């Protein structure tokens, strides 16, 4: 079943030439791009490696030294592991609490900011750029910087960590929420406006039912991110499991069995919340399974 293509129609021959020239040019461009990319990566690596205190190739053999140590010390004290798990569980709960509260507070903040900065929905259309810049600033400052400043002012503990994560979350979720808002249908809003509803009523009754599933999905994803963030903030004195991990992880104290227990708890918590949130996100996007 070979093609009975008519060879040599003049239009097609011209087009052959034209397209082959185009293809050759494209191949040349992508070849040059590939060479430039490889050269940049290689030279960048050399520069970075020269500025390193050690050296990549000298240090690479030691990559498994820390995990090997942790496993070696833990396997010696394996029967202590359940006790360690029980001992550190309350600080894990504290870390998760920080993440949960800051996700809730940050989510509320993000919701308000997103509604104020979406074209077509905003209460004060002229102020949209202002609210967008506010969200940019909230996203731009890393949690750990805010936490360090607040710990200096308020002293160590979970409250500064909560405020720091909530601030960053507000900016991050506000951006994601406003993208969801942009896809919302404005016809229900016209309907509500035509009956004389206020801005708050229009947002709550007209926008929220459309965007709630996506909001919740993003907020759950953010919750996972915040668990990790609040564990890291423990390193700078914000309490929770990060603080315990910092103490246990210091080299040469013989506490690596405790570090292993903390790693297990953190790993378990992330897996657990990942499963729970993906279950609920599926439920939200695909609807309840037919019973």
């Amino acid at each position, binding site marked *: *079943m*070979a*093609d*009975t*293509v*008519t*060879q040599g*129609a003049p*239009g*097609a021959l011209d*087009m*052959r030439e*034209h*397209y*082959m020239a*185009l*293809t050759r040019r*494209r*191949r040349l461009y*992508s070849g040059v791009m590939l060479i430039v990319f490889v050269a940049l990566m290689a030279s960048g690596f050399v520069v970075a490696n020269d500025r390193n205190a050690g050296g990549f190739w000298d240090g690479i053999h030691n990559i498994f030294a820390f995990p090997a140590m942790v496993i070696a010390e833990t396997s010696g004290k394996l029967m202590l592991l359940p006790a360690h798990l029980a001992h550190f569980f309350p600080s894990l709960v504290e870390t998760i609490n920080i993440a949960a509260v800051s996700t809730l507070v940050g989510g509320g903040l993000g919701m308000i900011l997103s509604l104020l900065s979406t074209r077509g929905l905003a209460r004060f259309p002229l102020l949209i750029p202002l609210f967008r810049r506010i969200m940019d600033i909230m996203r731009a400052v890393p949690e750990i910087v805010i936490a360090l400043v607040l710990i200096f002012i308020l002293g160590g503990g979970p409250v500064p960590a909560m405020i720091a994560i909530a601030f960053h979350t507000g900016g991050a979720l506000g951006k994601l929420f406003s993208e969801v808002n942009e896809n919302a249908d404005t016809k229900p809003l016209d309907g509500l406006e035509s009956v004389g509803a206020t801005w708050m009523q229009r947002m709550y009754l007209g926008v929220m039912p459309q965007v709630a599933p996506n909001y919740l999905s993003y907020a759950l994803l953010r919750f996972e991110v915040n668990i990790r963030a609040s564990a890291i903030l423990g390193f700078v004195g914000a309490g929770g499991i990060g603080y315990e991990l910092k103490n246990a992880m210091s080299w040469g104290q013989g506490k690596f069995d405790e570090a292993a227990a903390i790693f297990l708890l953190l790993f378990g918590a992330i897996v657990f919340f990942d499963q729970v949130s993906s279950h609920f996100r599926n439920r939200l996007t695909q609807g309840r399974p*037919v019973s």
Partner: protein
Amino acid sequence: MLLSVENVSKVFGGNVAVDSVSFSIEKPAFVGIIGRSGAGKSTLLRMVNRLTDASSGAIRFEGRDVLSLGGSAKRAWQSDCAMIFQQFNLVPRMDVVSNVLHGTLNRHSAFATFFNLYPTADIHRAIDILDRLGIAEQAAKRAEALSGGQQQRVAIARALMQDPRIILADEPIASLDPMNAQVVMDALRRIHEEDGRMVVANLHTLDTARRYCDRVIGMRAGRIVFDGTPGQLTTGVARDIYGADASFSESATSTSIEALDANARAMMEEAELL
């Protein structure tokens, strides 16, 4: 026996989309499948191409059960069994020739296709196929810049590039205006006549099925309720296939230009009589 479908069923959750369908096509023919939306026409074609897995049954092509194929054997079958979609399913941001060259993907490694390293002979053949379908001058444009009728012809060119044994067309003209619909159906018919390829098309209008097909299969609620020549497809049979009552009139929803002409002529004659 070329293609034989034996007791093929497809169950989605609790719904039976295709219910124990059997038919066989002995020689390369132009076969139309008609039926209302949800009758299982698309699911049937998708099962032949292995885009959707069947729940039970067998589909044999030259004696080999294509439903049991897996891995590269399945992909090789898909390359032999081209599919044309209602919404064209081209890559919108790539140029027309690249889209046509996608028909050869089964023969090339992923690495070569990432770097756009198609053999020159393939590129020439792609342009010749486009020329045969009358759209060679569009070759270097992005697929999304073309009209619906042109895009569907690019999709047919991609199918031809596969050099397939069967061409499956799932509602190829449902998204097109009457004139483009005719161009696309003429192209499919020409491919069937000139290359002797088997074409199986889902169609949603009766006049198209009558005009282009050698054989028509009618489906209703997942079952085959009619299998015969276009001549046997009377209004009574059509009512049965579509589950319509006596108020059903074909010309009311016809999309062919001839039908419009016929309507217009009838109106003119009426006007003259008055």
